[in-house]
């Protein structure tokens, strides 16, 4: 590999980090805005930039949307005093927020976020086109729990400790259902005449005829529920549960370290939405063809060159953002499950359901393949 090639990869990675981090930051804003709209309020609308907000019409409009709020929040996190309570285990206390952020950011390495066309052949836009895509994502994202557990333990006080314990139990429980729910997806994607790997690009190409949530609704549902649990979002926000555990695992954290936890949570949400989009919403595919509509409807921008790639990325982002909105929407609709209910749902409902789902679709897909290949 040449030096420029390596440098270019660094630049790509940097761009992706910037995009995902700012998406995470702005989903915090989206959370506050959607929450207030649902509750009949207006939400943050006061933060202004000196020059930009003076532009007529656009300036006040952006200010009303609270566009500059994440900047102010970030600056606040950066410049606040960084407290180290005397009772914490210093090294692990400092390590935990980093451990929470890194997995959230690493998972996006294998996320294809768009496509480009070389001589009419679709290629994924992805940082690392490795074959084990989804395995890599599961492996790394489940490391995120270490940040939370370590944060809860090193803080050395009871509420964070409870939060950490709950979080580890919850994440382990739902990881099983989550992993099992997408087995049918990959069985389908790796049918006859396909590439036969676990990359997410492969799954997207398998959704030309129908997006997978349409004919594997149960897989999609289980995966979505497990995703809520894995990202610690309401109705499964056991580790935080503000009303019982003060703030959960980050009770003892302040300033930028708290900010890191916060951003990690939202980065998880963004990456999770992206994965769900790829697996069940057809990635950057414009519309499914259902086998009836002309084939160009799947990727109408295939012949548009660079602009077409941009279109595919934007369409993928639109779907992802809708899912982020859905996460927020659910949060402000449902109350929290009790801890034992979470465990019951995970072990007694979702896991058997996922197993049955695997069996049914395995048989179904086997029969389908036999019929098609003969």
């Amino acid at each position, binding site marked *: 590999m040449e030096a420029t090639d390596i440098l270019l990869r660094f630049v790509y990675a940097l761009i992706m980090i910037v995009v995902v981090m700012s998406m995470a930051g702005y989903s915090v804003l989206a959370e506050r805005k*959607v929450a*207030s*709209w*649902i*509750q*009949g*309020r*207006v939400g943050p609308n006061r933060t202004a930039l000196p020059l930009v907000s003076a532009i007529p019409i656009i300036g006040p409009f952006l200010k009303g949307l609270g566009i500059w709020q994440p900047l102010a929040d970030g600056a606040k996190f950066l410049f606040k005093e960084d407290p180290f309570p005397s009772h914490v285990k210093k090294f692990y206390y400092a390590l935990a927020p980093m451990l929470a952020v890194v997995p959230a950011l690493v998972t996006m390495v294998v996320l294809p976020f768009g496509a480009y066309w070389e001589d009419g052949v679709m290629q994924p836009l992805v940082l690392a086109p490795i074959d084990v895509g989804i395995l890599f994502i599961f492996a790394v994202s489940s490391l995120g729990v270490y940040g939370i557990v370590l944060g809860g333990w090193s803080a050395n006080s009871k509420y964070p400790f409870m939060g950490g314990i709950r979080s580890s139990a919850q994440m382990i429980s739902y990881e099983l259902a989550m992993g099992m729910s997408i087995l049918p997806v990959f069985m389908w994607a790796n049918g006859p005449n396909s590439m036969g790997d676990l990359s997410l690009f492969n799954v997207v190409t398998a959704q030309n005829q129908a997006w997978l949530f349409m004919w594997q609704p149960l897989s999609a549902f289980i995966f979505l529920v497990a995703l809520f649990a894995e990202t610690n979002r309401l109705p499964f926000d056991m580790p935080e549960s503000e009303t019982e555990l003060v703030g959960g695992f980050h009770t003892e954290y302040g300033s930028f370290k708290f900010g890191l936890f916060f951003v990690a949570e939202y980065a998880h949400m963004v990456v999770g939405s992206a994965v769900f989009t790829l697996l069940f919403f057809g990635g950057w595919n414009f519309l499914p063809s259902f086998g009836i509509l002309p084939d160009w409807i799947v990727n109408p921008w295939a012949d548009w060159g660079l602009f077409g790639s941009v279109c595919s990325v934007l369409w993928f982002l639109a779907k992802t953002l809708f899912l982020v909105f859905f996460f927020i*929407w*659910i949060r*402000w*609709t*449902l109350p929290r499950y009790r801890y034992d209910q979470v465990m019951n749902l995970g072990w007694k409902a979702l896991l058997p359901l996922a197993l049955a789902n695997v069996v049914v679709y395995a048989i179904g897909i086997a029969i389908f393949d036999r019929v098609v290949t003969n």
Partner: protein
Amino acid sequence: MAKVVERKPLSLAEKTYVPQILGGLKVTVRNMFRPKVTLQYPEERPIIPDGYRGVPTLVKDPHGREKCVSCQLCEFVCPPKAIRITPGAMPEDQAEHAHVEKAPEEFEINMLRCIYCGMCQEVCPEEAIFLQDIYSIVGYTRDEFVHKKAKLYELGGTLPDEHYKWDKKKQAEEAAAEVQH
């Protein structure tokens, strides 16, 4: 006859909670498009209803005479002891009001003590102290929250009532004096 309410067991769909969750999502999304109830506070102010008990103030009568005669009833009735009055004679430069005899030399209301109960307004025989519609007072020091006489009159303004109690008293006295002559 007692009415027996039949309790149906939950159907399978209801047991999964999914229909209920969808119903909840519908409610919240409908709420999103309802008009907002937020009042943009410093720019928009709430409408203060009649009879609101805001900051206590002193008022003048339409002739510009201060109505308080420093009887100190409010000072004595004030539950948190927020009012402090220094009684004094009518100032020399207000000779036309000399018959009123007394006026407060200083009138202090400590707004850090005041509980906005309105008993001073209720007890005042001269209708000189009123809790009006000012609901927000700010200051940087404790001293700023002790409202002095000047400040109280500035906040209170003039009450457009046409009683002229003391003017009538004076007229009546003069009339009585003339009859005696």
